[in-house]
């Protein structure tokens, strides 16, 4: 069964399934295509995401960055018009062709969206819900974990005296960090961040950026951003897309200093 599945992967991608490559890359996407009716949104996307690094996804608006992220945690399921085909391996599991329970796939990935969506409950419960879903019942353990993750995002000192206040009473920047803590509490290995700082003030953005630098020790981060300087500051690996296609990917220094394609060159010029 397993072998048969392996055989369905076209050899032409050049990606290796060797143990060394598996250890290096946590996500491997092969021939990913997304259609919405006539509209070909993602075109034969092949890419590998290095483990415990920050991968930055760049490209003009509408090129399919959000769609690519949504494919990875299967939120594309919410949209019937989207047809997704290809392979997305998270570790060894091809999530597009698997029987693994969808909730547990999603729990491997924390999602941080453009604007924060705290759950309509208290600050404390926002973080503890995820744990409860995972079946943690021990009150002490939950308390401990809530504190740990709120500290992890630097929110603990600000909220420790108002844990029962509604999450919506926080500022947008704090809410975004709360959403990050909430995501971390379910112990993901990957963080999908879709323009996480675009609704934030410069200081909150900086806090999130610094958090990402710390978090990459334990998590793989895939970051979509339109802020070129942020990309330069954070990226360990960069991917540039236009119109659903990957145009360039690789070492960010190389990519930004010596763009090989006209598309990226134009994007960099406009971005600066």
């Amino acid at each position, binding site marked *: 069964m397993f072998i048969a599945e392996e055989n369905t992967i076209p050899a032409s991608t050049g990606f290796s399934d060797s143990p060394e490559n598996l250890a290096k890359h946590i996500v491997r996407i092969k021939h990913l295509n997304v259609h919405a009716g006539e509209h070909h949104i993602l075109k034969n996307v092949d890419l590998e995401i290095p483990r415990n690094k920050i991968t930055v996804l760049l490209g003009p608006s509408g090129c399919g960055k959000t769609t690519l992220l949504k494919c990875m945690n299967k939120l594309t399921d919410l949209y019937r018009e989207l047809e997704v085909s290809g392979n997305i391996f998270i570790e060894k599991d091809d999530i597009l062709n698997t029987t693994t329970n969808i*909730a547990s796939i999603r729990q491997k990935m924390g999602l941080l969206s*453009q604007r924060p969506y705290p759950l309509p409950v208290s600050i404390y419960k926002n973080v503890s819900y995820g744990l409860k*879903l995972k079946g943690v019942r021990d009150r002490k353990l939950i308390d401990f974990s809530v504190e740990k993750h709120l500290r992890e995002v630097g929110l603990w000192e600000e909220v420790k005296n108002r844990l029962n206040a509604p999450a919506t009473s926080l500022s947008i920047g704090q809410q975004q960090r709360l959403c990050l803590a909430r995501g971390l509490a379910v112990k993901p290995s990957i963080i999908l961040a879709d323009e996480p700082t675009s609704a934030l003030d410069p200081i909150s953005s900086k806090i999130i950026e610094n958090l990402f630098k710390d978090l990459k020790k334990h998590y793989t981060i895939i970051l979509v951003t339109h802020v070129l300087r942020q990309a330069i500051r954070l990226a360990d690996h960069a991917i540039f897309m236009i119109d659903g296609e990957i145009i360039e990917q690789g070492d960010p220094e190389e990519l930004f200093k010596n763009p090989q394609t006209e598309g990226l060159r134009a994007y960099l010029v406009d971005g600066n």
Partner: protein
Amino acid sequence: MRRRQIKILEEKFFVFLSAFMTYSLIVVLAFIILVIFVKGFNALNLDMILKTPEGGYYYGGEGGVLNAIMGSLYIAFGATLIAIFIGMPAALYINVQLIRYRRTQNTIRFFLDALWGIPSIVYGAFGFTLMLFFGMNASLLAGTITVALLISPIMVRTFDEVLSTIPKGLHEATLALGFTRTETAFKVMLKQGFSGFITAILLSFGRGIGDAASVLFTAGYTDNIPVNLDEPAATLPLAIFFQLGSPIPEVRERAFASAVILTVIILIISLGARYLSKRYSRTNLK
């Protein structure tokens, strides 16, 4: 310069128009309530709400409309409860499970809107047919079921409207955390839509307690307070209707007093619901 003046004039005119319409509505409403109060004031006394009709009540004798108050409350509460059990899961189903199927959602909404628009006398006739089919008599149960049918579409659609305004981002965020759809529905959407849910209940209850046509054939009428589901039940709208038709002025006055009682009940329920919805929407995403 002239264009500017025209713009300012235009702006003033529309502000005036909207203010005028808003306040006229309030004035009309206040006027209706005032008329009912004035006309019913003489007949309004504790006996009206504490006693059932005694001999000769309908000719101006002693007694009150407690039978109708209780009957109406029983029917409206019962029907609302049934409608909640039908409406809440239905609205959640439309918005959570059917999220990928926009066309199905819209078809369902279309039919619910149509059901909402059907006059209540038609529900009354349908309830009556159903009642005969099952060999029941006009009773508390038959009335409650008929009213439940009448208000269920209102419940579903009102709640559905609220749920459909919940940002898709919240939905996605919950699923991304590993919630199943059912958990998303009951733990997040229901909470986020709680104040809307209260509004839905309120609207349904108000329609249920105030409707005369649906209970006309199905609940019957009696001077007693029903103690069993298979006994007939009086209702306030019908009490108003019967008393208003009387040739005796005192009895007609009592019709208005009954109308006051009905209005006050609805007012109390509204205030209570508002309080609840304020209290429980504190944590909601705005």
